């Protein structure tokens, strides 16, 4: 895969060659550059080190750097592929790529499966779903009785867990979301198609001409 990094000449911390990233992703070079504008503003918001840490991520998402959220943590963990507790520009672009409208469903299904498989066992277990459900209800200050929660879980698992082993595997997940496509709504960000209009300052910083958009 053609992403090379020039270590001799690194113009900015966290910067990665936009042409390489554009080749790997659904983004054009100008879109990658626009994403860099976004990345700079997020990564510099608490510590200006060219990397997005958890606080900065929370700040960008919730406008509140102290807001801990189970789901945002999962997203962060999936963006942080190198498991360093920080997201660099390459991680940022490659992860956002999955949310691009033009990216095939397969990748979105993959990402969402890993998202919900919180302990990364390769299965989405009932107890994990219960934990996430309770977390969500906590966020909305809603309380449902344990009985109702169990009923919702029963229905979900009878729908999704076709071999009835108490957990949802990758194939069952794929079939389940095919029947319930709204579950993948969160995996597409239409904004990504308009990124160059949202962050127009890239026009003045552009170093490379678009050969192919």
């Amino acid at each position, binding site marked *: 895969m053609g992403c090379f990094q020039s270590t001799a000449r690194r113009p900015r911390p966290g910067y990665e060659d936009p042409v390489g990233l554009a080749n790997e992703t659904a983004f054009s070079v100008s879109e990658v550059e626009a994403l860099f504008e976004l990345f700079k503003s997020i990564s510099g918001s608490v510590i200006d080190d060219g990397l997005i840490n958890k606080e900065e991520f929370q700040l960008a998402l919730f406008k509140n750097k102290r807001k801990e*959220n189970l*789901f945002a943590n999962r997203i962060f963990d999936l963006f942080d592929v190198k498991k360093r507790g920080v997201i660099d520009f390459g991680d940022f672009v490659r992860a956002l790529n999955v949310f691009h409208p033009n990216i095939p469903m397969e990748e979105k299904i993959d990402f969402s499966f890993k998202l919900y498989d919180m302990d990364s066992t390769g299965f989405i277990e009932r107890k994990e779903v219960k934990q996430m459900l309770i977390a969500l209800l906590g966020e909305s*200050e809603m309380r449902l009785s344990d009985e109702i929660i169990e009923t919702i879980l029963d229905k*979900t698992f009878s729908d999704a867990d076709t071999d009835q082993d108490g957990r949802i595997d990758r194939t069952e997940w794929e079939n389940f979301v095919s029947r319930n496509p709204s579950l993948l709504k969160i995996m597409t960000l239409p904004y990504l198609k308009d990124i160059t209009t949202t962050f127009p300052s890239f026009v003045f910083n552009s170093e490379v001409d678009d050969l192919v958009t």
Partner: protein
Amino acid sequence: MAATKNGSPLLGKYELGRLLGRGTFAKVYHARSLAGGEHVAVKLGSLLAGQPERELAFHAPPALNAFDIISMSPGLDLSGLFGDSKRRREKRFMTTASPEQTVERLGQAGPKLGYFMVGKKGVDRLPLGGLSGLVAMSMEMSEVSPSMMLIELKLEGGDGDEEFGWEELRTELGDDMVMAWHGCDGKDVKDQGILL
């Protein structure tokens, strides 16, 4: 179930029942689907002058599964990274009220707050600017449990720059109807969780 006024089924599909409520532009009736016998609410509106009455019917709310509910977390909504315009145009709340009551109250609040209710598919038939300054609002109902529904409200069309009075709407709907108001920003401190 009362028969329709002239005895024949509405649009060939529904047997009309009692009037549930009326807004400025439409009336909502309780009805029964002749095909499946389901109880539905049917909204008949003369949305544009001269246009024939059109049905905006919706069926008993589909049941949510656990992942539908989980997907609602703002932590999974990365649009926030891009400046967050979506959340101002959508709100959700849970209610133990019936579909009919909810529809009725939403319809009544419309003229006061400057919106009118539309079905999701009716939107593209409306003029882009709405009707004399009113905004179109769509609603989706889903079942959380047999006695509790989730209502999702979304502003359709418009230019998104006007701040809609969500808090006023919440007040209009009343605390007896709104069990939990999910404003997507977690700021709603009213701890009125309901234990079923």
